[in-house]
Structures are given as structure tokens and as C-alpha cells.
């Protein structure tokens, strides 16, 4: 039985597409058959992040409107045999399909794939409704910033209202240096506010920019973010992977005692 996961956030630019690409690629690396669906009609980007932009002939809207067969719109990934992308239409808008059509499309893919991953557009309008329509499971991506967390909270409310029972959190772009100085909310702070089960914590990593430039997801590669995304995939597969410690808010007192300890060490040296 396949699992349909929607990757959503409310706010734009927090890492939905990056998360979709990396989670999809990571699951394929673990031997699963995966289809990534770009549900952001009119502003498609999953194709460029995956490095498959030159192979697009047909898209999701073509399938729904009957311009092509389902198989013709599925682009095979360059590196992973079990990984496929269904791109969004670029010259149409989000209102050209309905949630009902989306559910039908997803149901026709269920037999063939272990995971169906939907990259949701930003916002809470029609595009969001289309993307979540057929989902069993939602991954809410957010960053430790006030605006992103507020939007995430709104999205969580809408997911509940649409009866998506399983909702997990991925906290993206954490900066350990800022957390230590008390200038960024900690993982616990965000969990306390949003009250969702934690699926993954992804540190801010320049390798994500490099990987996106190259059109190659970095999941599983030797970088902090690559490992974090791979851990998310393992957790989705039901494995227990401990969370890396991303630092606590350092109080004045611990800072002082830290200084004191450092001085002692220097004296000893």
C-alpha cells in the first residue's frame, strides 16, 4: 500500500521544494519506488531542483485533461531507477484543476509506487487545497522565524480541518551559532509552540545552495543537511534515528561559567 505525503508550509521560501526533492531521492536510495508530484502549477520548480528540467514533455495538467497517458508525463530520474517526477504545468494556473481530479490522479499512481510525494505551493488557496486533497500524511516545513511559524500554525489548523490525521514537522535552516547566542528559537521552542511530532531538523547549510545550483539533491551525501534529510527518510521508513543536538539557549550564567572554565584550561596549558 502506498503512502501519499504532502510537503507544505504556508509561507514561501522555507524549503518545501528542497525537502520534497531530498526526501523523494532519499527514499529512492533506500530502495523504494517514489513519484514526486509538483503541485505548484504556474510556478514549477521541483524539476530544476531535481535537474530534470530538460526532459519535460508532458505535465500534470496534460494528464488530467487527457492530452497524454499517465506514463508519458512521468520523468525518470537520472540516478535512481525507482524515482519519477511528474512536473507541473508552467503556463497554466492553479485553478485549472480541482481537488477531485487530483485525488483521481493520485489513486491511479498508488498501485505503482510506495511513496507519492506532493510538493505543495505556498499559500492557502486553491493550489493548497488541490495538493492536500489526496494526501494521507503531511510534512509541515518551517524555519525558526516568527513569520514562518505563524503560517505553519495556520496550515496545521487547515490540515486538521481537512482531516489529515498524520502531520509531522520538519524544522529547516537552523543555525547553531545563533541558537547558542539566544538569537534564534531552539528546536524545543518551536515544538512547544506548534505541538507537532518532530520528523527532522535540518541545519542551515551552504551545500544546499550548491546542490540546487547543480540540480542534484544532496540527501545522503557528506554534508550536515544531506545527513539530516537522509535521517528524515529513515524515520519515514519507521527506523529510530536519534536527533542531533542543535544547541540550547545559553544563559548568562552558563556563558560565565564557560568563560571561567576556559580560563582555567588556559592557565593549565
Amino acid at each position, binding site marked *: 500500500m502506498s503512502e501519499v505525503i504532502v510537503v507544505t508550509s504556508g509561507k514561501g521560501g522555507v524549503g518545501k521544494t528542497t525537502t520534497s526533492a531530498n526526501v523523494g531521492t532519499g527514499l529512492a536510495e533506500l530502495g523504494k519506488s517514489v513519484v514526486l508530484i509538483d503541485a505548484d502549477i504556474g510556478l514549477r520548480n521541483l524539476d530544476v531542483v531535481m535537474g530534470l528540467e530538460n526532459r519535460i514533455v508532458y505535465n500534470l495538467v496534460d494528464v488530467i485533461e487527457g492530452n497524454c497517458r499517465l506514463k508519458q508525463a512521468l520523468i525518470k530520474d537520472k540516478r535512481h531507477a525507482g524515482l519519477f517526477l511528474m512536473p507541473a504545468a508552467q503556463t497554466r494556473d492553479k485553478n485549472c484543476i480541482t481537488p477531485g481530479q487530483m485525488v483521481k490522479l493520485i489513486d491511479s499512481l498508488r498501485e505503482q509506487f510506495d511513496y507519492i510525494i506532493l510538493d505543495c505551493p505556498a499559500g492557502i488557496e486553491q493550489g493548497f487545497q488541490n495538493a492536500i486533497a489526496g494526501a494521507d500524511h503531511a510534512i509541515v516545513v518551517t524555519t525558526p522565524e*516568527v513569520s514562518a511559524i*505563524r503560517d505553519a500554525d495556520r496550515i496545521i489548523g487547515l490540515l486538521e480541518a481537512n482531516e489529515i490525521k498524520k502531520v509531522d514537522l520538519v524544522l529547516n535552516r537552523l543555525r547553531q551559532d545563533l541558537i547558542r547566542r*539566544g*538569537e534564534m*528559537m531552539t528546536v524545543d521552542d518551536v515544538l*512547544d*509552540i506548534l505541538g507537532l511530532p518532530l520528523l527532522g531538523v535540518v541545519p542551515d547549510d551552504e551545500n544546499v545552495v550548491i546542490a540546487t545550483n547543480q540540480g542534484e539533491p544532496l540527501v545522503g551525501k557528506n554534508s550536515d543537511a544531506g545527513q539530516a534529510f537522509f535521517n528524515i527518510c529513515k524515520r519515514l521508513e519507521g527506523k529510530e534515528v536519534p536527533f542531533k543536538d542543535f544547541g540550547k539557549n545559553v544563559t548568562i550564567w552558563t556563558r560565565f561559567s564557560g568563560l571561567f572554565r576556559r580560563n582555567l584550561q588556559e592557565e593549565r596549558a
Partner: protein
Amino acid sequence: MSLFSIFKRKTSSQIAKDRLKILLISDRVNCSPEMMELIKNDIAQVISKYMQIDASSMEVQIAKTGTSARNGKKTPVLYANIPILDLRS
């Protein structure tokens, strides 16, 4: 800056967390700022019957309560901060 204020200074992450907690509660109960303003004006009117208050610096907001209500869930509370100018009306 006095030594006291160094210790008392809130980190920006703490400020963010505090702001979000209040913001999300009013977001969740779907209470518009206009409605809050109406509630605030009505409360001010009623209290003014009995004592002289400073309506301009009065604060009304929805906040989370520490006490748990039925089925162990925290319920939001309406919190009002009304400065009294004179107790005799």
C-alpha cells in the same frame, strides 16, 4: 546600562517565542482585531461606571492560561490590563 538590566535583558529568541504565543492564540480563536477593539471599548464603558480608568493605555488580549480546564486542555483566557486613575467614581 546597569548591571541589573544586563541580567534582565531578554534574548531575541525569547521575545520571538513570547510574541508568537500570544499571536497564535488570537489567530487560532479567529478573533479579529476589530472585535478585540469592540470588546475593549465595552469593558472600558462598564468599568467607567464604577471607577475612573485610563482607557487609552488599557490592554486587552487573549492569552493562554496556566490552569488546565476540562479534559486537561489549556483554554485561552481574555486578559485585560486596566490602569485605574481614581477608585472613586
